[in-house]
């Protein structure tokens, strides 16, 4: 592994640490006062500093150092993490992220901003209120000045970059790890007795690796009991003779200690005793000669030529070696273990409170270090695999079809074998798709920063609440989600939320809330962005639409239809164009990006209470469960997720409405009947509904329509082939696929067809669908 690769891994780890940092700070901001949260935040910055020092990234080191010093004050309860303090820290986290990006990709950072934050952090560390920002801060925000400490108000003059204590940014060396040592004596201490049985070794576990992992939890000293060791003649080389007495000081808890031995617990005797503060100390209960364990054990991490310990939390690097030896038996279940541990961490975050979370996260981390289930794979390789599996699915379908055609009674063994093949193919496909699935968390976290920055610029006070960050979706979808989401968040803060004084006047808290949630719903991912602002000013939207000739002056639009007008190109109600939004390029771009992903976007707004944008996106862009139908001699595929039910209409339930419209009566309610063949211009006149089948579909707007098709052929999973990429966009058609018999079938764009049924022609759909 060359230096660049190690550096790349460092940056990847930085991303993880930065995410950890941000989520920890946000938890603190939400009132979480668990010491483990503070520790996690501290560790994140400390790790970045450590790694950056090893690579000589001085800017990063010096900023992280100041940041870490201030965090240490929080950790040691010298500084109360008030909203004001956390605001500075969140901004510092942003700068730290910028510095990391610059270190990786080049470019430059806003020096003035980072210098200002260094001053603010230093002031906080000294127990002063942060010095006034050099850059004009929004006056309107006027948050309540929170007294940071009992100290006198901050000196107005900005503190010098080199502070009173003469701090100068210095390059980091590993000796600096002593930074944590000051407080080591305060850490909880544990005595551990570890007696491996011979089975531990025969099952492929290795005591040295367990001890190494244990030593990473804190300061450790050890005594090896060799009393049972016989001479060479009497010994069996594969029998366990050594046992250990260990003292460790760690803030990670007993669970973390035990989880180190997770894969070996049946094959060893393990006693973990938490010591009271008074008992803590070298060899407290007996006088065994305890030998201190060296801090830097990176040389044991499997890469003999690796640079000396990039960072202490470098489990990922070491994990590959650990996995090979420590968890051979557990290797196949490793990913499950990790997932379970991760799930446990998430679950307990919700129900058991932060303390349990910390322990569970520790477990997850430990499971990761013991089992190392991850590898980094080039995305191209995964995509190639996905394409090939797609071809396999098509091929398998074609094979099945030709066997069925030649096997009239359908009982031949080939036929049965093919069914198994079909299931296997499906499983392979699901597994391959799962490789690409990623949680939406990174995108959501980016939004937190967007909100902070826009709140600063607009002078509004905003809180971003996120839910369901661990919801997984295909990476392509995630990558393309960031841009529309950023647009929408900007709009929500800039247009949606009112200024604090206006909010107070309306009886709302001064701080506005923007909520971002993700969840799975019937095979799709639904992302909701809501704000508790003023809601859409429908009168103004309507007037604007009339002024721009988007609608007729006497058009009779429902509230929902008016709200959806904001998705029109060139539509903006902002009286003045601001830096953020209001150029009228926002929401139509958002809608188009979402549609390009095969998604739908919808808005619902309550005047005075805010707006909710709902995006529904496919989990993957590669396959689709569809109902294969015949319409005017053509084979079409209707996405299964859109279909509520299918029914065979009888003449009595069909009613005419106006000149051309027909309704179908379903369980005492009327639903418009849409002839797909007519809408797509497959035929000139409407077909007789009684001769066909009605598919009851639900469009994202919530309305139901009965789509008339001639017949249902069956239901199957199809591989999506983009029409845009291979041909061109066809109105009413979402994509194409290849059927078992080798023919191309078109996949119906249900929403577009529903919109067209409302009187808009499909050709205009791209510009006017929004109004539907």
């Amino acid at each position, binding site marked *: 592994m060359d230096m660049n690769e190690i550096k790349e891994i460092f940056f990847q780890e930085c991303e993880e640490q930065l995410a950890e940092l941000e989520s920890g700070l946000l938890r603190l901001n939400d009132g979480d006062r668990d010491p483990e949260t503070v520790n996690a935040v501290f560790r994140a910055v400390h790790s970045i500093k450590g790694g950056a020092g090893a690579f000589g990234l001085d800017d990063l080191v010096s900023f992280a150092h100041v940041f870490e010093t201030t965090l240490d004050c929080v950790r040691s309860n010298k500084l109360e993490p008030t909203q004001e303090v956390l605001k500075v820290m969140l901004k510092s986290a942003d700068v730290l992220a910028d510095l990391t990006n610059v270190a990786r990709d080049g470019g430059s950072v806003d020096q003035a901003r980072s210098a200002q934050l260094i001053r603010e952090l230093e002031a906080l560390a000294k127990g002063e209120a942060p010095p006034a920002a050099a850059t004009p801060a929004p006056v309107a925000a006027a948050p309540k000045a929170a007294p940071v400490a009992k100290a006198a108000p901050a000196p107005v003059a900005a503190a010098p970059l080199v502070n009173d204590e003469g701090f100068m940014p210095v390059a980091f060396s590993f000796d600096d790890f002593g930074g944590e040592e000051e407080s080591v004596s305060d850490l909880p201490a544990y005595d551990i007795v570890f007696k491996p049985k011979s089975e531990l*070794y025969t099952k492929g576990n290795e005591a040295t690796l367990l001890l190494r992992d244990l030593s990473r939890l804190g300061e450790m000293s050890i005594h*090896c009991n060799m009393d049972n060791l016989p001479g*060479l003649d009497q010994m069996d*080389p*594969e029998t366990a003779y*050594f046992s250990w007495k260990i003292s460790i000081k760690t803030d990670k808890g007993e669970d973390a200690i035990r989880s180190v031995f997770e894969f070996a617990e049946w094959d060893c005797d393990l006693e973990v005793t938490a010591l009271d503060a008074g008992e803590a100390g070298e060899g407290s209960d007996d006088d065994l000669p305890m*030998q201190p364990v060296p801090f830097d054990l990176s040389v*044991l991490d499997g890469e003999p030529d690796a640079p000396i310990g990039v960072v202490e939390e470098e489990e990922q690097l070491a994990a590959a070696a650990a996995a090979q*030896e420590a968890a051979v038996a557990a290797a196949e279940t490793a990913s499950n273990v990790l997932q379970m541990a991760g799930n446990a961490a998430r679950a307990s975050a919700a129900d058991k409170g932060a303390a349990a979370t910390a322990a569970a996260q520790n477990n997850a981390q430990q499971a990761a270090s013991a089992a190392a289930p991850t590898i980094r794979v080039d995305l191209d390789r995964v995509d190639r695999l996905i394409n090939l599996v797609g071809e396999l699915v098509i091929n398998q379908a074609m094979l099945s079809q030709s066997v069925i055609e030649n096997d009239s009674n359908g009982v031949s063994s080939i036929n049965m074998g093919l069914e198994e093949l079909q299931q296997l193919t499906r499983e392979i496909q699901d597994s391959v798709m799962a490789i690409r699935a990623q949680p939406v968390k990174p995108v959501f976290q980016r939004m937190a920063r967007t909100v902070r920055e826009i709140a600063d610029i607009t002078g509004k006070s905003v809180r971003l609440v996120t839910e369901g960050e661990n919801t997984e979706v295909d990476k392509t979808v995630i990558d393309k989600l960031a841009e529309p989401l950023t647009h929408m968040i900007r709009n929500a803060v800039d247009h949606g939320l009112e200024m604090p004084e206006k909010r107070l006047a309306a009886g709302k808290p001064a701080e506005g809330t923007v909520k971002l949630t993700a969840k799975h719903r019937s095979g799709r991912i639904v992302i909701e962005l809501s704000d508790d602002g003023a809601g859409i000013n429908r009168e103004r939207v309507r007037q604007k639409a009339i002024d721009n000739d988007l609608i007729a002056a006497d058009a009779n639009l429902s509230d929902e239809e008016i709200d959806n007008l904001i998705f029109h190109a060139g539509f903006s109600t902002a009286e003045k164009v601001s830096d953020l939004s209001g150029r009228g390029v926002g929401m139509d771009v958002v809608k188009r990006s979402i549609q390009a992903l095969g998604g739908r976007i919808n808005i619902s707004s309550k005047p005075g209470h805010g707006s909710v944008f709902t995006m529904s996106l496919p989990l993957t862009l590669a396959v689709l469960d569809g109902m294969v139908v015949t319409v005017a001699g053509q084979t079409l595929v209707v996405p299964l997720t859109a279909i509520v039910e299918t029914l065979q209409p009888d003449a009595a339930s069909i009613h005419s409405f106006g000149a051309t419209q027909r309704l179908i009566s379903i369980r005492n309610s009327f639903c418009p009947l849409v002839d797909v063949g007519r809408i797509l211009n497959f035929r000139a006149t409407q077909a007789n509904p009684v001769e066909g089948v009605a598919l009851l579909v639900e469009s994202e707007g919530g309305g139901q329509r009965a789509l008339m098709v001639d017949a249902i052929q069956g239901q199957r999973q199809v591989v999506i082939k983009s029409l845009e990429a291979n041909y061109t966009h066809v109105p009413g058609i979402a994509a194409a696929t290849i059927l078992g018999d080798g023919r191309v079938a078109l996949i119906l764009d249900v929403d577009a067809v529903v919109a067209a049924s409302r009187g808009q022609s499909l050709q205009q759909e791209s510009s006017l669908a929004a109004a539907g």
Partner: protein
Amino acid sequence: MAAKKAAQKSLSLAPVLDLNEANALHTKLMGLRGNTLVIDASAVERVGALCVQVLMAGAKSWEEDKQSFTFAKVSDAFTKTTQLIGVNIDHLMAKEI
């Protein structure tokens, strides 16, 4: 080159001394009994507890035989592992004269 003293043998340890190596190491040491032994652990990249056990049992037996059992050179990985698992080999290190 012939050794100055017929009774002095040396043993160079393999880079990887994992669980699979314990038996082999044991056999090698058994074959060297009765001789002054100088062990070269400079190539060791990884050593497991079982092999350390074998080496320490060896040291014990050599001591009983009143023969010298020393490590001439040790790698960083070897030293760190013994420190990690609390096995002190300082007294077995060859003294420079």
